[in-house]
């Protein structure tokens, strides 16, 4: 028993050492071989299964198909963990197969459902078990993951593809001044609406009659509420019943992200530079301040405008609900929008993207007052990211794989396949023409690209709570939100409870450690990252 513990502690210790000495770890230098893929050749996925016939040209560079095919990794096994198929999981499997063909490496991929991914990653990492070489996971876990990650070597940072990644997403990949995550996806929350419903003359007339306002894409959360209530119960083009809003509300799903979207405009004061979740100085939680409470009130109030089961929707439900035309509005990641724009979608090109709704007032935690000013914030919610484990014996092959995964040709194709869940993260991706080529209407494409691009320039930014123990904080938050939505507690009570728990979590995890990490988040928010 005691020996076991000693062994465990020793293993954990040795792992820390390994991490400290990182950089010396990579032992599998690639042998050169004859390139098997022609420079600038056509890249297509069609030989790998039922994929679009689209081809694209291989873009020259160290990560290209051509360059990769000149590497010989035969005898090397890469152990890769990724999310379940199809989201991220499917491209991981696909690129693993391609990488394997090009280099001779053996790539074993395991796909894990979202709810299990964190523990599946963190348990072996902490125990010093060299379980994975390459890991794909949500970027907000960086605080917990960072100690176990291999920083991205300079030569990869210098590639053209990496240099084109937007600032926001490079910020996301950085910890303590080091780029430890390899960007493969860009994510944010924004608003999606059904234009056919919003522009339907009868709807417009009735809305005007009922509310005295014009029916349009909501710009504030109260307008969102009003429009959602109005549209609930109306009929769509095929006579199908429509509900106002689809949101992620399932407690142990991604509800915390949805709630942060709703809270951003109420609680992220453009002038308050001291933190969104906490007061960065005192580490006092701000989660139960009036801005957050108001957002939760809104969240609770939307329930009647949700589809059946809408108070237990996971992300998948939200995507299918909006993408399938059941809900008129929705806000979260790109997926629902891309789903609505699939070639066989009933509402293709009947949708538009827009910034998250804003508010007419915003809580200033520094003054402790509501400021009556219109406010809006961009929520760079977590997206998928990738990294190489410090314990990996094959760091070079691992980075080459990620580099190949995200090369220009692959990304161009991946972005087109909605279920892959890979969304624009390079400046090159913010181009309406690219989307129009996919058959999107000019309006849809433009609204999409503009929305994303505008977010990049929004100075009022919210990032996830990128600190160690983030899952505990978010789990606690989701539990509080769910309790309020289930009517078990009032919004204030629920969030007071969350604040209490957050304090306890901070104590447990270590206040200094959390605070140090949180200061980095605040820097990101303030654009100082």
């Amino acid at each position, binding site marked *: 028993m005691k020996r*076991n513990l000693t062994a*465990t502690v020793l293993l954990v210790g040795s792992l820390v050492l390994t991490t400290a000495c990182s950089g010396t770890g990579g032992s599998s230098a690639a042998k050169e071989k004859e390139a098997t893929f022609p420079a600038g050749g056509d890249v297509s996925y069609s030989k790998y299964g039922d994929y679009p016939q689209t081809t694209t040209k291989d873009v020259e560079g160290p990560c290209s198909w051509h360059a990769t095919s000149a590497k010989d990794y035969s005898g090397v096994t890469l152990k890769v963990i990724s999310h*379940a198929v199809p989201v991220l999981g499917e491209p991981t499997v696909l690129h693993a197969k391609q990488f394997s063909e090009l280099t001779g490496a053996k790539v074993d991929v395991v796909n894990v*459902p979202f709810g299990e991914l964190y523990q599946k990653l963190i348990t072996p990492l902490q125990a010093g078990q060299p379980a994975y070489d390459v890991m794909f996971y949500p970027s907000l876990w960086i605080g917990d993951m960072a100690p176990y990650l291999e920083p991205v070597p300079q030569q990869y940072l210098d590639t053209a593809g990496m240099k084109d990644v937007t600032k926001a997403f490079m910020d996301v990949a950085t910890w303590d001044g080091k780029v430890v995550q390899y960007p493969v996806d860009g994510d944010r929350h924004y608003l999606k609406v059904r234009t056919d419903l919003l522009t339907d003359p009868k709807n417009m007339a009735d809305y005007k009659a009922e509310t005295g306002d014009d029916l349009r894409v909501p710009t504030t959360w109260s307008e969102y509420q009003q429009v959602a209530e109005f549209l609930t119960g109306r009929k769509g083009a095929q006579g*199908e019943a429509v509900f106002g809003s689809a949101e992620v509300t399932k407690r142990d799903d991604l509800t915390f992200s949805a709630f942060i979207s709703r809270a951003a405009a109420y609680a992220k004061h453009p002038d308050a530079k001291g933190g969104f979740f906490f007061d960065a100085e005192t580490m006092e939680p701000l989660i139960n301040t009036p801005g957050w409470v108001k957002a939760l009130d809104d969240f609770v109030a939307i329930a009647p405008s949700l589809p059946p089961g809408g108070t237990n929707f996971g992300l998948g439900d939200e*995507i299918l609900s909006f993408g*399938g035309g059941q809900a008129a509005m929705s806000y979260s990641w790109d997926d629902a929008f891309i789903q609505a724009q699939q070639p066989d979608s009933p509402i293709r090109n009947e949708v538009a993207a827009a910034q998250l709704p804003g508010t007419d007032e915003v809580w200033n935690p520094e003054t402790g007052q509501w400021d009556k000013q219109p406010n809006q914030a961009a929520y760079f919610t977590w997206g998928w990211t990738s990294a190489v484990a410090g314990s990996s014996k094959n760091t070079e092959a691992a980075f080459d794989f990620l580099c190949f995964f995200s090369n220009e040709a692959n990304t161009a194709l991946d972005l087109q396949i909605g279920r892959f869940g890979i969304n624009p993260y390079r400046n090159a991706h913010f181009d309406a023409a690219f989307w129009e080529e996919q058959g999107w209407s000019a309006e849809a494409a433009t609204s999409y690209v503009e929305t994303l691009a505008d977010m990049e320039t929004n100075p009022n930014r919210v990032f996830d709570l990128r600190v160690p123990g983030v899952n505990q904080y978010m789990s606690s938050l989701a539990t509080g939100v769910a309790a309020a939505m289930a009517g078990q507690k009032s919004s204030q009570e629920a969030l007071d409870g969350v604040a209490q728990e957050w304090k306890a979590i901070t104590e447990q995890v270590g206040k200094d450690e959390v605070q140090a990490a949180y200061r980095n988040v605040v820097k990101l928010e303030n654009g100082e990252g």
Partner: protein
Amino acid sequence: MSRWPRRAQYLLLIVWAVFTAMPFLWAITTSFKDVNAVQGHVTYVPWLEFEPTLEAWRQIFGGAGGVNLVGPFVNSLIITVCASAIAIVLGALAAYGLSRFRYRIGPAKNKDIVFFFVSQRIMPPVVLVIPFFFLLQMPGLLDTRLGLIIVTVALLLPIAVWVMVDFFDNIPREIDEMAMLEGCTPMQAFLRAIVPNSAPGLTVAAMFCAVFGWNDFFFAFRLTFTQVQTLPQAVVALNSSIPPWWTLSAAALFGIIPLLVLAVLVERYLSKGNLAGAVR
């Protein structure tokens, strides 16, 4: 005399048959759907209400966008068979001992020892999994079939012992006594006189072991990483944020097949009546 008991019997059977079959029927029809047949409104009948496609079935055998279930299937089979076999061997030996000899370990007598075995099932998996992790890590058995087999044996052993003790209790002890008198050591008596006559008990034990072994998701999931994936793991990996209902359905059905064979087998023993006493 009224005929209502007969009627109640048929009513119960019909209702329960429908209830039992419902998820399977739903999974079968769903496995032939695609995203359009799932969205919007509920459909049941292929061709009439939606255009059936074999896509989901292609996907579970390695088609694009799916997961290949063949490898995990083989893993599951190997692990289940090996673990069940070991659990039954160890379990049968222990059960035979407990049925035939009197033990006394401290204050514990035979009944208590049997209870000790069975009581292991009380342990919630969550309690066991982290220690198991470290237990397997030391000899480097994480992410290996062997490691998983060892853990599965521990989970199955109580079941095997429970079934077999009662079964052996029902075999006249004179048979093995006689074998001993006829020159068999107790071990030979067990192997030559008892085991050949224990098919029903071994079958039931094997069934329970196979069911619990095959269906274990929790431990398999947490004690392997990339090298060993079992079927439930692979199927559950489909049930993430955007569950492809069709693939999930096909996968669920695929995973049931081996156990369906088992159900038929068990029923045959039941019908022959020689499970009597094996499950008590």
